[in-house]
């Protein structure tokens, strides 16, 4: 099963598995370089050498004694970059998994209502801080509630038809969307501003504690999803075919959707709603490496991480204030997807 080779229907370039692995390694090197450059960029002038001295100092390899440099590099830039990597990987992987599972190239991680649920949780916590523990926890809880609500709604006699699931997701998303509108309606001016800003997404509140919460979970979940890539390949052929090949489709779907939803909800709860990464990156990866999910998922994940690091670096350096990263991802993402749709539709839609 692991040796199944997928080819572009369009008859485009087809890589051997070895070439694909090389490509993923190259992507990983690009990610490392991007992160290493991004950490040297910022409004505060610190020499490149000093930046790396701070990093080495914190890794107990070298010594540097400037506390301001340490705060800027290690407490402000580093958590943002690590979080951007984790969130980029999470959203792109989840997007790839959703697109494969639902066999629909227009699906994104937010299709089952996770963003609307999380937005409701965050808004609830902003408007009624006295009743809820934290924005993050509340966003995560309601993100998961929305998706599992959709799943329960769509499940009939142990089966969950994909079309019904998407419809249930749309319904739940709409419900939570309305609830967010109600909260915006009754919130104070400051609360309203905060809700709107939260929904635009951003890494400006990133701290090491967020990194500790997100990075290990995202790493584990995405690795599991990468390993399940071959099952996703089989599932992409259709449920009947997958069953014929001995796959327990219902269980596989549940595992895939649960893990993808989990990392999405976790990401959204920390950085808000960041559009386009989950939709665009799997497409971009598919364009380069083809539809084989064993390679597509890791490629999309790394490309998502690179894309978000670049967007966040723009967000924190373009003006003297912060720009919500969701705005940058949309500005860069929308034209790119438009280009893909106009030029490469055969690759995506056959």
């Amino acid at each position: 099963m692991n040796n199944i080779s997928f080819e572009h229907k369009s008859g485009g370039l087809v890589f051997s598995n070895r070439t694909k692995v090389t490509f993923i390694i190259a992507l990983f090197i690009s990610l490392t370089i991007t992160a290493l450059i991004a950490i040297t960029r910022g409004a505060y002038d610190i020499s490149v050498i000093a930046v790396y001295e701070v990093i080495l100092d914190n890794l107990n390899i070298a010594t540097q004694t400037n506390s301001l440099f340490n705060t800027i590099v290690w407490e402000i830039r580093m958590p943002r970059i690590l979080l951007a990597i984790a969130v980029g990987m999470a959203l792109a992987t989840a997007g790839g998994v959703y697109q494969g599972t639902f066999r629909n190239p227009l699906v994104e991680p937010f299709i089952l209502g996770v963003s609307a649920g999380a937005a409701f949780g965050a808004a609830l916590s902003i408007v009624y801080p006295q009743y809820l523990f934290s924005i993050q926890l509340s966003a995560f809880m309601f993100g998961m509630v929305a998706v599992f609500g959709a799943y329960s709604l769509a499940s009939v006699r142990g089966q969950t038809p994909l079309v019904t699931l998407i419809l249930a997701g749309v319904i739940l998303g709409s419900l939570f969307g309305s609830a967010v509108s109600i909260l915006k309606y009754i919130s104070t001016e400051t609360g309203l501003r905060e809700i709107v800003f939260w929904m635009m997404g951003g890494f400006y509140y990133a701290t090491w504690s967020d990194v500790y919460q997100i990075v290990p979970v995202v790493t584990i979940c995405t690795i599991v999803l990468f390993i399940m890539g071959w099952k996703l390949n089989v599932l992409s052929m259709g449920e009947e075919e997958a069953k014929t090949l001995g796959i327990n489709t219902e269980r596989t779907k549940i595992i895939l959707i649960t893990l993808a939803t989990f990392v999405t909800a976790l990401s959204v709860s920390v950085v808000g709603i960041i559009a386009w990464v989950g939709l665009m990156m799997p497409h971009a990866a598919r364009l380069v490496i083809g539809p084989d999910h064993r390679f597509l998922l890791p490629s999309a994940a790394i490309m998502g991480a690179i894309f978000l690091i670049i967007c966040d670096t723009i967000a924190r350096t373009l003006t003297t204030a912060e720009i919500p990263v969701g705005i940058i991802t949309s500005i860069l993402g929308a034209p790119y997807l438009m280009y893909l749709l106009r030029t490469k539709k055969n690759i995506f839609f056959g």
Partner: protein
Amino acid sequence: MRMKKSKMTLLVGALVVASIIGIVSMSGCIDEKTVETPKQVPVPTPTETSKPEVTPVKEEAYKTVTDMRGKAVRIPKDPKRVVAISEGMVDQIMVAFGIEDKIVGYGSCGKIRDCDTSGYLAINDTSDTYNGSWYIGSILYPKMRELPYLGTPTKGINYEQLAELNPDIIIMRARDYDKNEGEKKTIATIEKLGFPLIIINRPNHYDKPDVSTIYKEIEVLGEIFDKQEKAEELIDFLDGKLTFIKERTKNIPESEKPGVLYFGLSRSARKKGGAGNVRGIDSIQSIFLEDIINAKNAYRGKGRVIMSAEQILALNPDVIVLPTSSGFHPPRELYEAEAFENIREVKAIKEKRACSLPAVGCRSERLDFAMTLMIEAKCVYPERFKDIDLNEFVDNYYKDVFDVSDDKVEKLKLTQRLRWLEIIE
């Protein structure tokens, strides 16, 4: 068809180069700035964990000020570089103290800019053609326009830009730092940077806003800049205006107090099917209306809610006050615009007892609050304040508080759109 090895090498190379070019081009060129030492030596606050490299400083160059969190903060005795994140309050107090040139950066709900569309009128769907900023700080201290805008705790602060400014002190006017996670994180990060951070509380930080906390803000700033006397004078001046209003409006029986409605003519409220938005008894405007002007809010609910024409008719207020609400709204909008035809039977509109408040940004109280209250008091009780010429009152107010020339007074009036809003003639 297998990909050729050279093609793969090219692809890998292109990826690496593209990522380098991408990130370099978006964030400026990588010039090897050889800043090996920080531009300043951070002054540790009492709660900061000491960093070994902090240069020893003479104790007499520092003092300790207790901010409105109750935290003792060690600051330079004579701070020269000040970052004010306060939506205008700190800037105005510093202008009043005559030390505005110490401001090196600011934070507000938006960057200072001119706007010609924010005075949207519902009359014939036209806009106010006045082109200028609503931020009176930009008139009081024109250099503000060139200073870097840093954001707010809600929108996020650009910490690196803040550090780049190398401030001696950061003064932040905050509201929810005890419960809002964003504000908490913002404060923690700024404190980690090592710059002294003084927090002053917005009135709505408290369950029941009170002018005494505004006076406290002025006091804290007086202590920071060693302007205690000026702070005292300013507080006395503001309190004098409020006492004057209170004297004129005392002993009014409950039954004779007019019902006042704060009615925001925001276009977005109409788009949502309402006639406008109204402010409840927990709003700072309502609290000041009831405590100082001694009138009553016609809407006895809480919060800021959108109301339909029918609900406004049911409230039937005696007086309507038009605050800034997604634009600036003169009474003629209420009397003439088609959008408000359905509420023309409301007593306040029938009797032409609507009046506007000066244009303000960010819905924040600043040093002009006592002037606004006088304008409002005259609107609610015109008979009791008939000897008050608002034009003269405003001129003197600006001059007394900010010590500005006649020319600047005119500009301030223009910025707060006092004539356009029919507050003065």
